[in-house]
């Protein structure tokens, strides 16, 4: 199996705190699979996710330790993304590793401009290419039929579920290797949640998914691998089925069965 990302003894400390929030995490993220991170609030799962595209760097004063290796498409050559210093390297990284947030975050512009925003940033100017890529991305996010007649309307007018699919389309349009999902359905109703989950299962044909979720049923439905985190440690990592049916650690079992968390 090909690797997409691998962390090695990765630790992370927020500014003005003494204790590390993540302590020596080693987790493999396999290419074209869905890996879920579960665990109670404050366990560090979002912190780990947000380290993978260095979005922490938007705020000053964080410190990273260890390595996060990002592999190329063949799963052979890897670079340690924590060594990136220049803004340009971070921009390239973020175009390779997209991110979807808890709440839908459409930009205050039209539906079409939302999709083409990242494409234009990456230097594509040709209008037909932009339009084609918009259509492909919206189809990929199962949103095309709903919005094809109002591409120039404001994205703020879409429903919550549509907005979240727009955000996925926007990220997919850049053809990233990896998509990070930070509890993407926590603000959505069950029907929209189902459509996002279906979409995530589709997406893994083309890219790698790392998803943080509070919802254990969701993790068991959509993921191939699951990592259980607790107080900044990766307690257990395995094939999703094993984690949910045969956990090795007592802590994992307690959490899965709802005894705490």
């Amino acid at each position, binding site marked *: 199996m090909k690797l997409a990302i691998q962390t090695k003894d990765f630790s992370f400390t927020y500014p003005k705190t003494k204790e590390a929030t993540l302590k020596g995490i080693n987790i493999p993220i396999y290419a074209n699979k869905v890996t879920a991170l579960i665990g109670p609030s404050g366990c560090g799962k979002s912190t780990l996710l947000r380290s993978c595209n260095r979005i922490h760097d*938007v705020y000053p004063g964080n410190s990273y330790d260890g390595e996060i290796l990002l592999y190329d498409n063949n799963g052979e050559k890897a670079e340690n993304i924590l060594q990136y210093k220049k803004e340009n390297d971070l921009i*390239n990284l973020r*175009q390779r590793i*997209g991110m979807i*947030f808890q709440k839908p*975050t459409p930009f205050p512009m039209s539906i079409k401009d939302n999709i083409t*925003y990242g494409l234009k940033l990456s230097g594509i100017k040709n209008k037909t290419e932009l339009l084609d890529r918009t259509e492909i991305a919206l189809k990929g996010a199962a949103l095309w039929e709903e919005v094809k007649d109002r591409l120039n309307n404001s994205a703020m007018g879409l429903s919550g579920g549509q907005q979240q699919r727009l955000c996925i389309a*926007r990220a997919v349009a850049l053809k990233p290797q990896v998509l990070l999902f930070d509890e993407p359905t926590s603000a959505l109703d069950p029907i929209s949640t189902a459509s996002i989950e279906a979409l995530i299962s589709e997406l893994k044909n083309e890219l790698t998914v790392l998803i943080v979720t509070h919802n254990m049923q969701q993790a068991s439905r959509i993921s191939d691998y699951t990592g259980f985190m607790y107080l900044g440690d990766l307690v257990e990592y395995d094939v999703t089925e094993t984690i949910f049916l045969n956990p090795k650690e007592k802590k994992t079992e307690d959490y899965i069965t709802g005894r705490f968390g």
Partner: protein
Amino acid sequence: MLFNRFFRGLSHTSAWLVLTILFAIIIVLFHYSKSAIGDFGFFHFITNSKWIVGNDGNGGNFGGLIPILGTFLSSLIAMVFAIPIAMGIAIFLTEIAPEFLKAPVGIAVELLAAIPSIIYGMWGLFYFGPLLQSWFGGQSNSLLTAGVVLGIMVIPFMAALSRDAMNTTPSVLVESAYSMGATRYEVIKDIVFPFAKKGIIGSVILSLGRALGETMAVAFLIGGVFRFPDSLTSATISIPVLIANNFGEAGNLQLSAMFYMALILFIISFFTITIAKFYFLRKTD
């Protein structure tokens, strides 16, 4: 129960008091300016550039063109000067400044806003006006000096309001732009600015309202002469300065003409503030 009714009555009275004062001001302005309105009409008054006191001290030929122009032009210069600098400060404070600089610079901006306008006036009169004169020629007390100092005066106000508007941009929106590979400049240009646009426009209009009505600093700096400004560096007069300078010795009709000017200033400021409120209150679609 009694207490309840007492407070209800008190808060009602307070609220109505504001409206009463507003209407009282309009009525008084209108009442005293009636004879000037009768004599000069509206269009004739605002297009007449003369301000001549009659021989007996009571009559005369009064027109508002020059002070209206002086008010607008000095405020316009103030805005042209203040907007880029205020936006720079606001962007610096919200997106660029490191944490340890945000608080001191923010406090400095608020302190600037608290300086009484007469101090700006004196500073402009003794230092800044001569400096501008040595650069651009003309007179040291001029439209330009008044406008630029007015601009400096409203910068803190405008910067603070714009900063607050920009701070309302949700951090996830900013993060998601970064996560698309945007640079800091692109995030500010494409996300923060459009998101805070209405608040920023509101801050500009509110600042304009302050600049239009400012008396003390402008009285020091605009020259106070009733003359058509043929260049930026020539002295002229604005509505508040005209009123402040001539109130003491004015005869009946001149007094009425000044009330008329005050009424016009009131209407101008009232409309500016109304537009600002309209922008502030309007919901994003």
